[in-house]
């Protein structure tokens, strides 16, 4: 876990960090593209090309930003806060390297609360414009987030407890990549829990619909209704990164195969490749879920999160209390 | 010593108890006052017998005072009062006569048991102590009982005075009275108390137009 010593290793670490930074900036639109494409295919449509998300972002950056007259500096600052916190979390996550540059900082609690900081500002910005939709989205987002967090903490608790640390890097490297650990009932339950959490946290069906334009059912979209141009681009980008973060969590904590065992170039490249496969796979699964489920009514969402909570608790019980 | 005196004392004490019982069962206010007067006269007689029989001359003052104050003075004041305030001369009970008498019977038994250790405490207990003390305690307790069970303000005065008679009798019986100066003070107090109570009955009657203590219930809680 500790950073390797020596000049050379530090250079390597720096390199890795840059690779990871580039990856977390570049990958998310692709993941988004994969989901959209797979959904389209599942619905017998051709769907947009994989590059569509990149073009969308690029286009948004080029457009002029509209700012409501009633807003304050919160409104303008929020996109940057959201983007920054999300990106920071992404760079601190274990992804495909054994020596993530700031691995000792990838404390799970810290990461969850960093995401919370972004959400806090986004929710505030939604109230800033003075429109009802903003308030509606803000209120729902914060409600769901508060229900998600306990489930999220609990879902990785079992794994973290066997690693003896809340450091994601430590957890990821402690999970042995054997079949028995993968198919451990406790692991599966926890995975299911975290998967539901992922859906809720990233605003996917059945909790929220990222593509909706029906104001009254919106959550995330309602919050960012007033945003445009570069602000919207940053927020969209950030939410795509967030999806990647949760996919990485799912992939690396429960299917730890693929995190490079050493700093050798081969291992590293293999690591990246396996990581990409895992992420791609998860994207397809999400697309599958989104295509086969309808969005839940708002007041059914707590039930779903309760399921996630219970699953995680069960996994804990299975792992530690019943031996 | 001559046995007549103790015998007479016993007799009078028993008579005092009887008058007390009569007070309990009586229904007329005037009769009440007369019974009390009679009781006081007998009390004075007891005191006189103590003087004669035991040579306690200082009690002579008590004899005179008892006869003057209790047997004559207070009854006259009370009768005047009853005339002045013109109340119905009937007495209201909050406990009926039968039960009252039963309670009084019980009180006499209790008084006997209470007196027991006092009597037995003295190696040579005089006849006076053995017989009169229980009676005096009974009279005292019955006096208190009269106060709790009768509604008219005047009856309460008489109850109180009966109690005091009981206490006085007990004083005579066991200690042959108190030191004289104390005795005087006590008499003075009782006289003043009776007067003041009378004044209040009068005022209450003037203000409330009744002496039924049921109307004296504005101050509660």
């Amino acid at each position, binding site marked *: 876990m500790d950073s390797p010593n020596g000049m050379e290793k530090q250079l390597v670490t720096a390199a890795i960090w840059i690779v990871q930074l580039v990856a977390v900036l570049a990958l998310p639109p692709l993941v988004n593209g994969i989901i959209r494409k797979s959904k389209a295919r599942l619905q017998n449509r051709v769907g947009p090309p994989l590059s569509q998300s990149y073009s969308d972002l690029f286009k948004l950056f080029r457009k002029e930003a509209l700012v409501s007259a009633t807003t304050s500096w919160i409104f303008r600052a929020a996109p940057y806060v959201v983007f920054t916190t999300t990106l920071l979390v992404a760079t601190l996550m274990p992804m495909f390297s054994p020596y993530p540059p700031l691995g000792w900082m990838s404390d799970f609690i810290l990461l969850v609360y960093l995401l919370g900081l972004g959400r806090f500002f986004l929710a505030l910005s939604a109230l800033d414009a003075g429109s009802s939709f903003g308030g509606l989205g803000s209120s729902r987002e914060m409600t769901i987030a508060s229900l998600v967090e306990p489930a999220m903490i609990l879902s990785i608790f079992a794994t973290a407890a066997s690693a003896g640390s809340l450091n994601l890097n430590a957890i990821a490297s402690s999970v042995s990549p054997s079949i028995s650990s993968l198919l451990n009932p406790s692991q599966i339950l926890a995975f299911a829990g975290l998967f539901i959490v992922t859906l809720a946290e990233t605003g996917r069906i059945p909790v929220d619909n990222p593509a909706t334009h029906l104001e009254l059912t919106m959550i995330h979209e309602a919050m960012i209704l007033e945003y445009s141009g570069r602000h919207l681009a940053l927020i969209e980008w950030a939410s795509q990164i967030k999806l990647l973060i949760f996919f990485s969590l799912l992939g690396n904590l429960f299917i730890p195969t693929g995190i490079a065992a050493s700093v050798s170039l081969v291992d590293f490249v293999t690591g990246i490749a396996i990581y990409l496969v895992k992420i791609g796979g998860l994207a397809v699964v999400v697309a599958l879920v989104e295509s086969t489920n309808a969005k839940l009514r708002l007041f059914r969402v707590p039930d779903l999160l309760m399921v996630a909570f219970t699953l995680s608790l069960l996994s804990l019980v299975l792992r530690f209390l019943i031996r | 010593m001559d046995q007549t005196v103790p015998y007479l004392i016993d007799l009078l004490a028993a008579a005092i108890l009887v008058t007390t019982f009569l007070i309990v069962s009586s229904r007329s206010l005037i009769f009440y006052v007369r019974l009390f007067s009679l009781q006081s006269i007998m009390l004075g007689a007891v005191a006189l017998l103590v003087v004669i029989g035991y040579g306690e001359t200082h009690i002579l003052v008590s004899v005179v005072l008892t006869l003057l104050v209790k047997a004559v003075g207070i009854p006259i004041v009370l009768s005047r009062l009853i005339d002045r305030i013109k109340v119905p001369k009937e007495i209201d009970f909050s406990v009926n006569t039968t039960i009252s008498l039963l309670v009084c019977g019980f009180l006499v038994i209790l008084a006997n048991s209470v007196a027991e250790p006092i009597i037995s405490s003295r190696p040579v207990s005089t006849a006076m102590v053995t017989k009169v003390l229980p009676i005096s305690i009974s009279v*005292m307790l019955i006096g208190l009982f009269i106060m709790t069970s009768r509604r008219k303000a005047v009856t309460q005065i008489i109850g109180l005075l009966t109690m005091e008679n009981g206490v006085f009798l007990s004083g005579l019986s066991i200690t042959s009275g108190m030191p004289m100066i*104390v005795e005087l003070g006590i008499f003075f107090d009782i006289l003043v108390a009776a007067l003041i109570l009378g004044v209040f009955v009068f005022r209450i009657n003037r203000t409330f137009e009744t002496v039924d203590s049921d109307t*004296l219930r504005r101050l509660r809680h």
Partner: protein
Amino acid sequence: MSVIIFTALLVLPLVGAGVCSLTRHQRMLEGVTVAVAGVAFAAAVRLAFIILAQSTLSSRNALLYVDALSSLVILVVTGSAFATALYSVSYLRVQLRLGAIEIRHVRLYYSLFNVFLFTMMTVLLSNNLGFLWIGTEASTLSTAFLVGFYEKEHSLEAAWKYIVICSVGITLALFGIILTYYSALSIVGGASNALHWTVLIKIAPRLDPGIIKLAFIFILVGFGTKAGIAPFHTWKPDAYGEAPAPISALMAGGLVNVALYSLLRFYAIVTKTVGAAFASHLLMFFGLLAMAVAVPFVLVQKDSKRLLAYSSVEHVGIIIFAVGLASPLAYFGALLHMINNAIAKLILFLTTGNLRLAYHSKLIARISGAIKVVPATAVFYIVGIFAITGWPPFGPFISEFTIATAGFANGNAIPVILFLLIVATIFIGFIYYGSRMVFGEPHHLLPPVQLHPIVDVLIGGLVLLLLILGTMIPPWLWMLVQNAAKVLQG
């Protein structure tokens, strides 16, 4: 020296009463009464120092006798009398001005005030328990007309109940005294000093335990009635509620302690004769009962003076309870509480008197926003409430805490817990009604009331006194209380 002091304490009030009953001159009445009470108080202070130096003082014929216990109570009683005499001047003047009373009432008031003081002094100074009884009964009689002072329906009723109930009690006490006398006679023979406390306490171990037990029951009921221990307290709210404020104050601060004093004298004899357990259990029981009885009436109350009356019942309970704990520390606490309670009661009754003058009512519901109408009074009142309910930094906290500590120290944990619980509960009632009266806006516009400026100084001084007692008890007082506690130990 002793002659002067005894004269100042005993004869002077009697002279004062005589003078007052003869004159109709208002200033004269006021002057004489205040002077008598003031001189008595000064004498009491002097007496306290004498007692500290030589422990007892008695007249030549041994009829009068003072030790630390009586000196302490004399101090409290004359102090209360002095404060209430001063206060009466302002109170009666306002009432006279308002036409609530006439000059003949004023004369009666001051005459009886002096008689009242005289009777209390008789109790406290006499060595002979017979005179003690006479003084007690006389104090009832002298206050009867003061309680019924206003000659209204309510005050007549209150006075009637007061005099009847107290007379019954005191009659029972007389029987107790006769029994004691009887028991003592068999030891000292026919001597006329068989009723002298100084003799009785000496022969106490040889007295017949059975008779003394019986005697104590009658004494407890008798003087308990006078002191207002539950369930014999029933006259108290009526009398305190209807009497003029200074008289209520003097009764709560003085008379109660006089009655308690008598009880304590007999208590000392009983413990020596039959051992501590008998009397101590009785006192603890009745103390707690008195405290408990006050609770419902303090928590639900309409009348500001009856509130204080029930508080008086509670505090008599506290003192009795403390004595019942039967340890030197507990006695100390009890006697200290006697002082503290007296001062706090003075503060509260006098401020309530002011409120009554200002609002023309003693009903809690009619009084509000006192802080705006009579600011100083309101402040003293709320301070008094905190003091009487045992909050630091006031005297009663110290005494109550001492009592609780004494209880825990000699293994009476459960009764002390009950004691603390009741004290805490009582506070809730007090602050509820207190804050209603003191805070907020006055209901309606009130004509300003002209209180004599001395009133605020007087009550402020009492508050200060209570503060001193709560923070730094003067060493001489400490010693006096300690010596008084020793008297209780026999």
